[in-house]
């Protein structure tokens, strides 16, 4: 069953066509890779799928419902969460508060309950605190709950992004270059985490990445973009052999440099 379907998605901005008639379909439980040379429109496509941009043409469906043009925060409530290329964090908050803030939005019992402290709200607050700690441990940041987000290392920041993304209990997670700027061991750790997100939590994943090793290892299905259009769509083996893809990248597969 297709969880997410984009049909004929196009984005034009002042004469530039960043995304051109893109159609793709992601099944529940998949780990989908979205790759392409720089400027291919991958982040723009993400922006279209997550309400940051409105498509000029085309529609997006999620779990059978048409979500075209819905704003980001509404999509989060539907279960679509996205992380960013440049880590977006509540830099002044602790790791714990980052995750707790994201949890609050979804499990609160109402404005007035927040003002008055009933035993019910207290129990809910405790439950949320527990869940925040769980999530933090799951991504591997256990022990760092009190660290200020802004002071974390780059790798930990990217882990925190994932933790914050997990708080709204997403069914679909769109990861924009999760291993960008990470060293080898951290890349492995991140990709293992991504895998477990699907294996353990059942979250469908779509990830944009330049690191071919990571993509080939983890993704079962890969979509390739170039100049805003889909040029190939299939299994890693098929993609690796596709002459159009090889031409688009010109030697990236031979040259095994991590991004």
């Amino acid at each position, binding site marked *: 069953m297709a969880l997410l379907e984009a049909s004929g998605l196009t984005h034009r901005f002042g004469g530039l066509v960043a995304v051109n008639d893109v159609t793709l379909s992601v099944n529940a439980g998949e780990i989908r890779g979205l790759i392409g040379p720089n400027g291919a429109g991958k982040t723009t496509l993400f922006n279209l799928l997550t309400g940051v941009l409105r498509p000029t043409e085309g529609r997006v469906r999620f779990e059978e419902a048409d979500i075209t043009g819905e704003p980001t925060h509404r999509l989060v409530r539907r279960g679509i969460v996205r992380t960013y290329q440049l880590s977006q964090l509540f830099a002044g908050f602790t790791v714990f508060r980052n995750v707790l*803030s994201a949890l609050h*939005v*979804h499990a609160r019992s109402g404005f007035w309950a927040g003002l008055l402290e009933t035993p019910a709200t207290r129990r809910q607050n405790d439950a949320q605190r527990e869940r925040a700690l769980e999530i933090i441990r799951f991504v591997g940041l256990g022990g760092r709950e009190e660290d200020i987000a802004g002071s974390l290392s780059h790798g930990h920041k990217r882990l925190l992004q994932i933790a914050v993304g997990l708080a709204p209990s997403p069914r679909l997670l769109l990861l924009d270059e999760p291993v960008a700027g990470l060293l080898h061991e951290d890349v492995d750790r991140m990709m293992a985490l991504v895998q477990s997100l699907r294996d353990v939590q059942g979250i469908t994943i779509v990830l944009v990445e330049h690191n071919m090793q990571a993509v080939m290892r983890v993704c079962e299905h890969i979509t390739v973009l170039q100049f805003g259009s889909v040029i190939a769509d299939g299994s890693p083996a098929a993609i690796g052999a596709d002459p159009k893809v090889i031409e688009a990248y010109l030697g990236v597969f031979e040259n095994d440099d991590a991004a």
Partner: protein
Amino acid sequence: MSPGRTSPTVAWIAALLAGLVALPLLVSDAYILHVMILIGINVMVAVSMWLLGITGLISFGQAGFMFIGAMTTALLTKSAGWPFWLALPLSALVPALVAAPVGRLSLRVRGVYFFLVTLAFGQVVNGIFAYFQDPFGGWYGIRDIPPPQPATLFTTLNKVPFYYLCLALTLITVGVVYRVSRSWFGNVLWSIRESELLAASVGIDVPGTKLIAFVVAALFAGVAGSFYAAYFAYISPLVFTFEYSVNMLIFIVVGGFASIAGPIVGAVVLTLVPEMFRMTGKYQLLAFGLILILSMRLMPQGIAGAYAAFRARRVRSSLPGRAQSPGMDRET
């Protein structure tokens, strides 16, 4: 949401409250009560502006909402003969109702443009009340606004009932704003300040939240305006000016932004200083202008922030990354 604060702080606050309540019994000088009332009005507006400011929105037209509240009370009590106690809730409601569409439209623009719209709004309100002498009094304003009932209690000779009324309204305002700022909603506001993009990405309706904050700030400004009208018995466009809006902002800048203590401290200090030095009119403007510049250059964290930093240095060990924006639990 927060666990009980540390015992010394609770004790201090209790002592302060007791002092405030007992003040008229200990002091008979009407002038002192008058100054306390001025402080109360300023605290009310400053604190509500602060709540809005958490989201990063500064409204340069709060005086406009105050004026609307004051005008509502003036017209209802003087022209329509309503009792003040009925006029008061309406004077909170009307500015809030105006703030909803104004806020929604203003929030469509970002950054500087928002500030300019609020500035323009304040001027438009002022201008409209100034232009139409009937029923708004024009430049002459409205005088002889009746005091709250019972009139025998709220006479011009005895400031004590006014003092207690102002104290009650101020405490309610501060209390509500404080609770909200420490609640999950308050955390949403702080989150928006940290990163609007991430806030939206975790499901926060950023424009909607900002609008709520904007309307709440207008509501409390209306309450302060209503009390102003009843206490001073005279309102005019010469009072609720752009300078007045900026004054409230100066309270927050000088007092500090990081916690609710900031606007309170700022309002107290900057109400007392002009009174102590008998500054009026242009001299007060001059002083405030200089104070604003000095504060932004030399003490950007404000008095409350400087005090907090001072205490932190003395009490805690200097681990890196210990400071954080205030609000929720798990911190002292």
